[in-house]
């Protein structure tokens, strides 16, 4: 769908129901015909929030203690870059080293407790449908892309841009961004220490469920990366479902 004006390439996108032509080099969405599986929640209780995060987009939500977030990997092997904060004091936020040292394992699985920089449980992985989840690979950014792939990638949208944009909606900024979780991304550490993002182990409809252990703010980037296999080179949506075990009625605060 690319066309060329005199000098600047344009593409056309459907935005709010009409066709918008733009010169912005927007990242690629999934190809037509990609299998998509909108699975339901991986936790019991009433669904109080059900939202789809478009490919490439940021997202955030507040969860009350006891509520569970199910993230559905709708298209398969789509990295959900994830940060979590104490909703009432965002100085307390997710900590990779506290989480890993406490559990004595480099990967996240069912039962993993997501700990804060104060060592306290922010959330717990209560359900997980892939072998292991990543929290050592960090987020992509337009700047780090230039290191890994070359300067030609500098203009591309990245997770750090998403994190910054979404964090700003909550009064947070660059100093609040820390190492994150990448749900559905595969980052093995090999026997000789080699580490990298390789082909994923997920599939359309695979899920992870994370229960809030305190009131939390969750910020997510639906990773726009097209230079490595973290999204299977095919950026797909994520479905976000929040369930509340105590609520008896359907969604009313979405």
């Amino acid at each position, binding site marked *: 769908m690319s066309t060329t004006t005199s000098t600047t390439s344009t*593409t056309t996108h459907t935005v709010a129901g009409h066709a*918008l032509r733009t010169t*912005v080099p927007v*990242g690629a969405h999934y190809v037509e015909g990609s299998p998509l599986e909108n699975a339901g929640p991986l936790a019991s209780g009433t669904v109080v929030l059900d939202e789809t995060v478009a490919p*490439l987009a940021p997202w955030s939500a507040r969860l009350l203690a006891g509520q569970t977030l199910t993230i559905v990997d709708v298209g398969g092997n789509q990295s959900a870059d994830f940060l979590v904060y104490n909703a009432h004091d965002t100085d307390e936020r997710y900590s990779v080293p506290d989480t890993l040292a406490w559990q004595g394992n480099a990967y996240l699985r069912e039962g993993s407790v997501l700990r804060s920089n104060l060592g306290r449980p922010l959330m717990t992985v209560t359900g997980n449908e892939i072998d292991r989840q990543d929290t050592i690979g960090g987020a992509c950014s337009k700047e780090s892309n230039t290191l890994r792939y070359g*300067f030609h990638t*500098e203009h591309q949208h990245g997770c750090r841009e998403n994190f910054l944009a979404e964090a700003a909606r909550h009064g947070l900024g660059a100093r609040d961004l820390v190492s994150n979780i990448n749900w559905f991304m595969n980052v*093995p550490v090999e026997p000789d220490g080699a580490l990298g993002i*390789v082909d994923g182990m997920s599939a359309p409809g695979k899920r992870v469920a994370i229960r809030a252990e305190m009131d939390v703010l969750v910020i997510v980037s639906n990773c726009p990366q097209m230079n490595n296999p973290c999204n299977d*080179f095919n950026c797909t949506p994520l479905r976000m479902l929040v369930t509340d075990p105590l609520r008896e009625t359907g969604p009313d605060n979405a």
Partner: protein
Amino acid sequence: MTSIADDHQTDSVLAARADARAQAERTSEYMPYRPASSSPVVPEGVDRDALVWAETVAPGGYTHKVIARGTRLRLDDPTGSACAHVVVFNALETNERLNVADTIKIPWQAYLGAGHPLLSGDGRALATITADTSGHHDTFCGTSSDESTTAKYGSAAPEGPSPSGRSRFLLAAAKHGLTGRDLPPSVSFFQGVRVEPDGALTFLGSAGAGTHVELVAELPLIVLIVNVPHPLDPADDYLVGPLTVHAWPGEPTLPGDPQFTATPEVNRAYLNSIDYAEARAL
């Protein structure tokens, strides 16, 4: 279904590393050139070997840099459809920043052109426009917001086809530890606005392809540049062209330079900037 993944062998760390490294020689229409002397679009008359910043900013993109006092900063609009929204800060004390009101009030002139200073709210010149072949600029409308962008284009999503200027400024500012409260109104280059007798703001648009603006930093600056359509751009589509940026070392406006005493007001602004710089041994 053919997938891009089929073109990549990434099933082990070493394979993924090789796949990533193989991408390094690619180029893009929109990218920074490093070293800056490798720029493929050095403006005529500019010494390639002196460059400290060279980049083509994508449509809808942004860039930012800390530049030394005296640095010359040149913005080029190769297609006639760029719109460079600019904010500058004193890099040493970011509460001192572009003040658009003072920038037009003190020089008794609303329309930017060569010799026009970019003033802070602290009575100092942060920068001066040293050359201008466009003359189509704006000090009234600032940049686009998410609200105005969504109303006009249907979306202002940061990852989408029509990002807002403010959202881009927020990202650029964040890279320097600054947030929304640090963002003052901006000026924009290459898309003009004129005020009619009744106050109506008329969009002049571009002066055409191939114009440029050059500025000199009177103090060490954090420069934020956002390339999005002008808020009054009448087009229904989001059509902004690429923007090229080059910078090289030089001198601030000093005694002896005709610009130093061009007007009594700007003379005192330069004296204030020099006073600040000398006290800090810049």
